[in-house]
Protein backbone atom coordinates (compact mmCIF):
# COMPACT_ATOMS: atom_id res chain seq x y z
CA UNK A 1 0.00 0.00 0.00
CA UNK A 2 1.53 3.27 -1.07
CA UNK A 3 0.55 6.41 0.74
CA UNK A 4 2.12 9.61 -0.47
CA UNK A 5 2.69 12.34 2.09
CA UNK A 6 0.03 14.96 2.46
CA UNK A 7 0.92 18.63 1.96
CA UNK A 8 0.74 19.05 5.70
CA UNK A 9 3.23 16.29 6.28
CA UNK A 10 5.51 17.75 3.64
CA UNK A 11 5.35 21.16 5.31
CA UNK A 12 6.08 19.58 8.69
CA UNK A 13 9.01 17.70 7.24
CA UNK A 14 10.44 20.95 5.84
CA UNK A 15 9.94 22.58 9.23
CA UNK A 16 11.67 19.67 10.95
CA UNK A 17 14.61 20.10 8.57
CA UNK A 18 14.91 23.79 9.46
CA UNK A 19 14.67 23.06 13.18
CA UNK A 20 17.38 20.41 12.83
CA UNK A 21 19.66 22.91 11.07
CA UNK A 22 19.15 25.54 13.75
CA UNK A 23 19.59 22.99 16.54
CA UNK A 24 22.79 21.80 14.92
CA UNK A 25 24.07 25.37 14.58
CA UNK A 26 23.36 26.04 18.24
CA UNK A 27 24.83 22.70 19.38
CA UNK A 28 21.44 21.62 20.70
CA UNK A 29 20.53 17.92 20.66
CA UNK A 30 17.86 16.37 18.41
CA UNK A 31 14.55 18.22 18.36
CA UNK A 32 11.35 16.34 17.57
CA UNK A 33 8.17 17.75 16.09
CA UNK A 34 5.48 15.53 17.56
CA UNK A 35 2.99 15.94 14.72
CA UNK A 36 5.46 14.80 12.08
CA UNK A 37 5.22 11.18 11.05
CA UNK A 38 8.10 9.88 8.93
CA UNK A 39 7.08 8.69 5.48
CA UNK A 40 5.83 5.13 5.17
CA UNK A 41 8.06 2.60 3.51
CA UNK A 42 7.15 2.16 -0.11
CA UNK A 43 6.68 -1.13 -1.90
CA UNK A 44 7.74 -0.35 -5.49
CA UNK A 45 6.30 -3.64 -6.71
CA UNK A 46 2.89 -1.99 -6.29
CA UNK A 47 3.77 0.65 -8.88
CA UNK A 48 3.98 0.56 -12.65
CA UNK A 49 7.75 0.70 -13.39
CA UNK A 50 7.11 2.96 -16.39
CA UNK A 51 5.01 5.57 -14.62
CA UNK A 52 5.35 9.09 -13.33
CA UNK A 53 4.57 7.73 -9.85
CA UNK A 54 7.66 5.53 -9.98
CA UNK A 55 9.79 8.53 -10.97
CA UNK A 56 8.29 10.45 -8.04
CA UNK A 57 9.23 7.68 -5.60
CA UNK A 58 12.82 7.58 -6.89
CA UNK A 59 13.06 11.38 -6.65
CA UNK A 60 11.80 11.24 -3.05
CA UNK A 61 14.52 8.73 -2.27
CA UNK A 62 17.12 11.10 -3.69
CA UNK A 63 15.70 14.30 -2.24
CA UNK A 64 14.69 13.14 1.23
CA UNK A 65 16.61 9.95 1.91
CA UNK A 66 13.55 8.71 3.78
CA UNK A 67 12.85 5.61 1.74
CA UNK A 68 15.77 3.23 1.98
CA UNK A 69 14.49 -0.32 1.72
CA UNK A 70 16.27 -2.82 -0.50
CA UNK A 71 13.25 -3.25 -2.76
CA UNK A 72 13.61 0.37 -3.84
CA UNK A 73 17.21 -0.18 -4.88
CA UNK A 74 16.19 -3.23 -6.92
CA UNK A 75 13.41 -1.22 -8.53
CA UNK A 76 15.80 1.63 -9.28
CA UNK A 77 18.19 -0.74 -11.03
CA UNK A 78 15.28 -1.86 -13.21
CA UNK A 79 14.25 1.77 -13.61
CA UNK A 80 17.54 2.58 -15.34
CA UNK A 81 16.19 0.81 -18.44
CA UNK A 82 12.66 2.22 -18.29
CA UNK A 83 11.13 3.52 -21.51
CA UNK A 84 10.42 6.80 -19.69
CA UNK A 85 13.24 9.32 -19.46
CA UNK A 86 12.04 10.80 -16.18
CA UNK A 87 12.08 7.32 -14.60
CA UNK A 88 15.61 6.58 -15.87
CA UNK A 89 16.88 9.90 -14.55
CA UNK A 90 15.20 9.53 -11.17
CA UNK A 91 16.42 5.93 -10.86
CA UNK A 92 20.01 7.11 -11.33
CA UNK A 93 19.52 9.73 -8.62
CA UNK A 94 18.08 7.13 -6.23
CA UNK A 95 20.93 4.67 -6.79
CA UNK A 96 23.51 7.43 -6.23
CA UNK A 97 21.84 8.12 -2.87
CA UNK A 98 21.27 4.51 -1.76
CA UNK A 99 24.48 2.95 -3.02
CA UNK A 100 27.12 5.41 -4.26
CA UNK A 101 29.66 2.66 -4.98
CA UNK A 102 27.21 0.85 -7.23
CA UNK A 103 26.25 4.11 -8.92
CA UNK A 104 29.88 4.99 -9.57
CA UNK A 105 30.40 1.68 -11.36
CA UNK A 106 27.10 1.62 -13.28
CA UNK A 107 26.44 5.17 -14.36
CA UNK A 108 29.42 5.92 -16.65
CA UNK A 109 28.26 3.26 -19.13
CA UNK A 110 24.61 4.25 -18.72
CA UNK A 111 25.48 7.87 -19.55
CA UNK A 112 27.32 6.81 -22.71
CA UNK A 113 24.33 4.71 -23.82
CA UNK A 114 21.68 7.31 -22.93
CA UNK A 115 19.85 8.79 -25.93
CA UNK A 116 18.34 11.74 -24.12
CA UNK A 117 20.67 14.63 -23.41
CA UNK A 118 18.45 15.75 -20.55
CA UNK A 119 18.47 12.34 -18.88
CA UNK A 120 22.22 12.02 -19.40
CA UNK A 121 22.71 15.36 -17.66
CA UNK A 122 20.75 14.21 -14.60
CA UNK A 123 22.74 10.97 -14.59
CA UNK A 124 25.98 12.97 -14.76
CA UNK A 125 24.87 14.95 -11.71
CA UNK A 126 24.10 11.68 -9.91
CA UNK A 127 27.51 10.29 -10.84
CA UNK A 128 29.20 13.42 -9.48
CA UNK A 129 27.36 12.89 -6.20
CA UNK A 130 28.32 9.22 -6.06
CA UNK A 131 31.99 10.05 -6.53
CA UNK A 132 32.22 13.03 -4.14
Amino acid sequence: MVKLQSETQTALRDLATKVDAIASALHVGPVTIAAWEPAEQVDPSQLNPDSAEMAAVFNRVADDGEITNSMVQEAALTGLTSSRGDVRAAAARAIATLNPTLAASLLPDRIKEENSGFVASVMLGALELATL
Partner: protein
Amino acid sequence: MTLILRKLESTDVWLKAKANEESGVGEALPAWGIREFVPSEKDGEGLSVFRVRDRTEALQVAAAFGMSKATSAEKGRYAFMAVEENLLSEAGINISKTPGDLGHLVVDDKHYEIRVRSSEDLLLVASTFWSGDLMHFEGRTVLKAMRDSMRRDDFDVAGQAKISPQKGVCMNALKFIADGAAVVRGVPEVVEPAAT
Protein backbone atom coordinates in the same frame (compact mmCIF):
# COMPACT_ATOMS: atom_id res chain seq x y z
CA MET B 1 32.95 27.94 -25.48
CA THR B 2 30.89 30.40 -23.44
CA LEU B 3 27.56 29.31 -22.00
CA ILE B 4 24.64 31.38 -20.78
CA LEU B 5 22.71 29.81 -17.91
CA ARG B 6 19.16 30.39 -16.78
CA LYS B 7 18.17 28.73 -13.49
CA LEU B 8 15.09 26.49 -13.67
CA GLU B 9 12.49 26.11 -10.96
CA SER B 10 10.36 23.25 -12.31
CA THR B 11 13.10 20.71 -12.98
CA ASP B 12 10.88 17.63 -12.95
CA VAL B 13 8.43 19.12 -15.41
CA TRP B 14 11.20 20.17 -17.79
CA LEU B 15 12.75 16.74 -17.64
CA LYS B 16 9.46 15.02 -18.44
CA ALA B 17 8.67 17.42 -21.28
CA LYS B 18 12.16 17.18 -22.80
CA ALA B 19 12.09 13.39 -22.58
CA ASN B 20 8.71 13.42 -24.33
CA GLU B 21 10.01 15.76 -27.03
CA GLU B 22 13.10 13.62 -27.59
CA SER B 23 10.94 10.53 -27.97
CA GLY B 24 8.66 12.37 -30.38
CA VAL B 25 5.52 12.47 -28.26
CA GLY B 26 5.73 16.00 -26.83
CA GLU B 27 5.42 19.60 -27.93
CA ALA B 28 8.42 21.59 -29.18
CA LEU B 29 7.96 24.18 -26.45
CA PRO B 30 5.08 23.62 -24.01
CA ALA B 31 3.21 26.76 -22.97
CA TRP B 32 4.23 26.40 -19.31
CA GLY B 33 7.91 26.40 -20.34
CA ILE B 34 7.68 30.11 -21.06
CA ARG B 35 7.09 30.88 -17.36
CA GLU B 36 10.72 30.24 -16.49
CA PHE B 37 11.73 33.17 -18.70
CA VAL B 38 9.36 35.82 -17.42
CA PRO B 39 11.40 38.41 -15.49
CA SER B 40 10.28 38.84 -11.89
CA GLU B 41 8.33 41.94 -10.90
CA LYS B 42 11.39 43.04 -8.92
CA ASP B 43 13.65 42.73 -11.97
CA GLY B 44 11.35 44.60 -14.38
CA GLU B 45 12.39 43.73 -17.94
CA GLY B 46 15.72 42.20 -16.96
CA LEU B 47 15.94 38.40 -17.01
CA SER B 48 18.82 37.16 -14.85
CA VAL B 49 21.31 34.85 -16.53
CA PHE B 50 24.91 33.83 -15.83
CA ARG B 51 27.86 33.68 -18.24
CA VAL B 52 30.15 30.71 -17.60
CA ARG B 53 32.86 28.76 -19.40
CA ASP B 54 32.11 25.24 -18.21
CA ARG B 55 30.33 22.93 -15.78
CA THR B 56 32.72 23.80 -12.96
CA GLU B 57 31.74 27.45 -13.15
CA ALA B 58 28.07 26.46 -13.42
CA LEU B 59 28.45 24.54 -10.15
CA GLN B 60 29.70 27.77 -8.55
CA VAL B 61 26.50 29.48 -9.70
CA ALA B 62 24.47 26.67 -8.14
CA ALA B 63 26.45 27.13 -4.91
CA ALA B 64 25.56 30.82 -4.89
CA PHE B 65 21.87 29.96 -5.23
CA GLY B 66 22.25 27.31 -2.51
CA MET B 67 23.36 29.89 0.00
CA SER B 68 20.24 31.98 -0.57
CA LYS B 69 17.83 29.05 -0.20
CA ALA B 70 15.37 29.28 2.65
CA THR B 71 15.71 25.55 3.31
CA SER B 72 18.74 23.35 3.85
CA ALA B 73 21.02 23.86 0.88
CA GLU B 74 21.67 20.17 0.32
CA LYS B 75 17.99 19.32 -0.19
CA GLY B 76 16.81 18.70 -3.72
CA ARG B 77 18.63 19.62 -6.90
CA TYR B 78 19.74 22.63 -8.93
CA ALA B 79 19.12 22.85 -12.65
CA PHE B 80 19.89 25.31 -15.41
CA MET B 81 19.21 25.56 -19.09
CA ALA B 82 22.46 26.33 -20.86
CA VAL B 83 22.87 27.74 -24.36
CA GLU B 84 26.00 28.74 -26.20
CA GLU B 85 26.39 32.49 -26.24
CA ASN B 86 26.69 32.62 -30.02
CA LEU B 87 23.28 30.93 -30.41
CA LEU B 88 21.73 33.77 -28.44
CA SER B 89 23.44 36.44 -30.51
CA GLU B 90 22.49 34.66 -33.74
CA ALA B 91 18.86 34.78 -32.53
CA GLY B 92 19.23 38.54 -31.98
CA ILE B 93 19.22 38.26 -28.18
CA ASN B 94 21.67 40.56 -26.40
CA ILE B 95 22.97 40.23 -22.87
CA SER B 96 24.27 43.05 -20.74
CA LYS B 97 26.42 42.84 -17.63
CA THR B 98 24.71 43.87 -14.41
CA PRO B 99 25.71 43.23 -10.79
CA GLY B 100 24.29 40.07 -9.23
CA ASP B 101 22.83 40.03 -5.74
CA LEU B 102 23.47 36.48 -4.55
CA GLY B 103 26.30 37.54 -2.24
CA HIS B 104 28.85 35.34 -4.03
CA LEU B 105 31.64 37.64 -5.12
CA VAL B 106 32.74 35.47 -8.07
CA VAL B 107 29.27 34.49 -9.30
CA ASP B 108 27.81 37.98 -8.94
CA ASP B 109 30.49 39.09 -11.39
CA LYS B 110 29.16 36.57 -13.93
CA HIS B 111 25.64 37.99 -13.74
CA TYR B 112 24.04 39.37 -16.92
CA GLU B 113 20.56 40.34 -17.99
CA ILE B 114 18.48 39.78 -21.09
CA ARG B 115 15.92 42.49 -21.77
CA VAL B 116 12.50 40.89 -22.18
CA ARG B 117 10.19 43.74 -23.17
CA SER B 118 7.40 42.02 -25.06
CA SER B 119 5.66 38.70 -25.57
CA GLU B 120 7.68 38.33 -28.81
CA ASP B 121 10.92 38.77 -26.82
CA LEU B 122 9.69 36.23 -24.29
CA LEU B 123 8.86 33.61 -26.90
CA LEU B 124 12.20 34.09 -28.64
CA VAL B 125 14.19 33.77 -25.41
CA ALA B 126 12.20 30.74 -24.20
CA SER B 127 12.48 28.88 -27.49
CA THR B 128 16.21 29.59 -27.76
CA PHE B 129 16.88 28.26 -24.25
CA TRP B 130 14.57 25.31 -24.92
CA SER B 131 16.98 24.25 -27.67
CA GLY B 132 19.86 24.25 -25.20
CA ASP B 133 21.20 21.66 -22.77
CA LEU B 134 20.31 20.86 -19.18
CA MET B 135 22.90 21.27 -16.44
CA HIS B 136 21.83 19.40 -13.35
CA PHE B 137 23.49 19.23 -9.94
CA GLU B 138 22.55 17.25 -6.85
CA GLY B 139 22.06 19.21 -3.64
CA ARG B 140 24.88 17.49 -1.77
CA THR B 141 27.29 18.21 -4.64
CA VAL B 142 26.26 21.85 -4.41
CA LEU B 143 26.71 21.77 -0.63
CA LYS B 144 30.34 20.72 -1.10
CA ALA B 145 30.83 23.51 -3.64
CA MET B 146 29.35 25.94 -1.10
CA ARG B 147 31.81 24.81 1.55
CA ASP B 148 34.67 25.22 -0.94
CA SER B 149 33.42 28.71 -1.82
CA MET B 150 33.19 29.66 1.85
CA ARG B 151 36.70 28.41 2.51
CA ARG B 152 37.87 30.69 -0.30
CA ASP B 153 35.88 33.52 1.29
CA ASP B 154 33.83 33.97 -1.89
CA PHE B 155 30.60 34.57 0.03
CA ASP B 156 29.85 37.93 1.55
CA VAL B 157 27.74 36.22 4.19
CA ALA B 158 27.86 39.03 6.72
CA GLY B 159 26.82 41.56 4.06
CA GLN B 160 23.98 39.39 2.85
CA ALA B 161 22.73 38.75 6.39
CA LYS B 162 22.57 42.48 7.01
CA ILE B 163 20.57 43.02 3.85
CA SER B 164 18.07 40.27 4.57
CA PRO B 165 18.36 38.56 7.95
CA GLN B 166 15.41 36.28 7.14
CA LYS B 167 17.04 34.77 4.07
CA GLY B 168 18.24 31.21 4.13
CA VAL B 169 21.80 32.49 3.86
CA CYS B 170 21.79 32.88 7.65
CA MET B 171 20.68 29.32 8.29
CA ASN B 172 23.03 27.74 5.81
CA ALA B 173 25.95 29.89 6.93
CA LEU B 174 25.29 29.06 10.58
CA LYS B 175 25.42 25.40 9.72
CA PHE B 176 28.81 25.76 8.07
CA ILE B 177 30.18 27.73 10.99
CA ALA B 178 28.83 25.14 13.44
CA ASP B 179 30.48 22.37 11.43
CA GLY B 180 33.75 24.29 11.65
CA ALA B 181 33.78 24.08 7.86
CA ALA B 182 34.13 27.73 7.05
CA VAL B 183 35.60 31.01 8.03
CA VAL B 184 33.09 33.71 7.21
CA ARG B 185 33.96 37.27 6.33
CA GLY B 186 33.48 39.36 9.44
CA VAL B 187 32.90 36.39 11.73
CA PRO B 188 35.87 35.15 13.77
CA GLU B 189 36.87 31.53 13.37
CA VAL B 190 36.12 29.31 16.35
CA VAL B 191 39.40 27.86 17.62
CA GLU B 192 39.21 24.63 19.57
CA PRO B 193 41.14 24.78 22.87
CA ALA B 194 44.39 22.85 22.79
CA ALA B 195 44.33 19.47 24.53
CA THR B 196 46.14 19.43 27.85
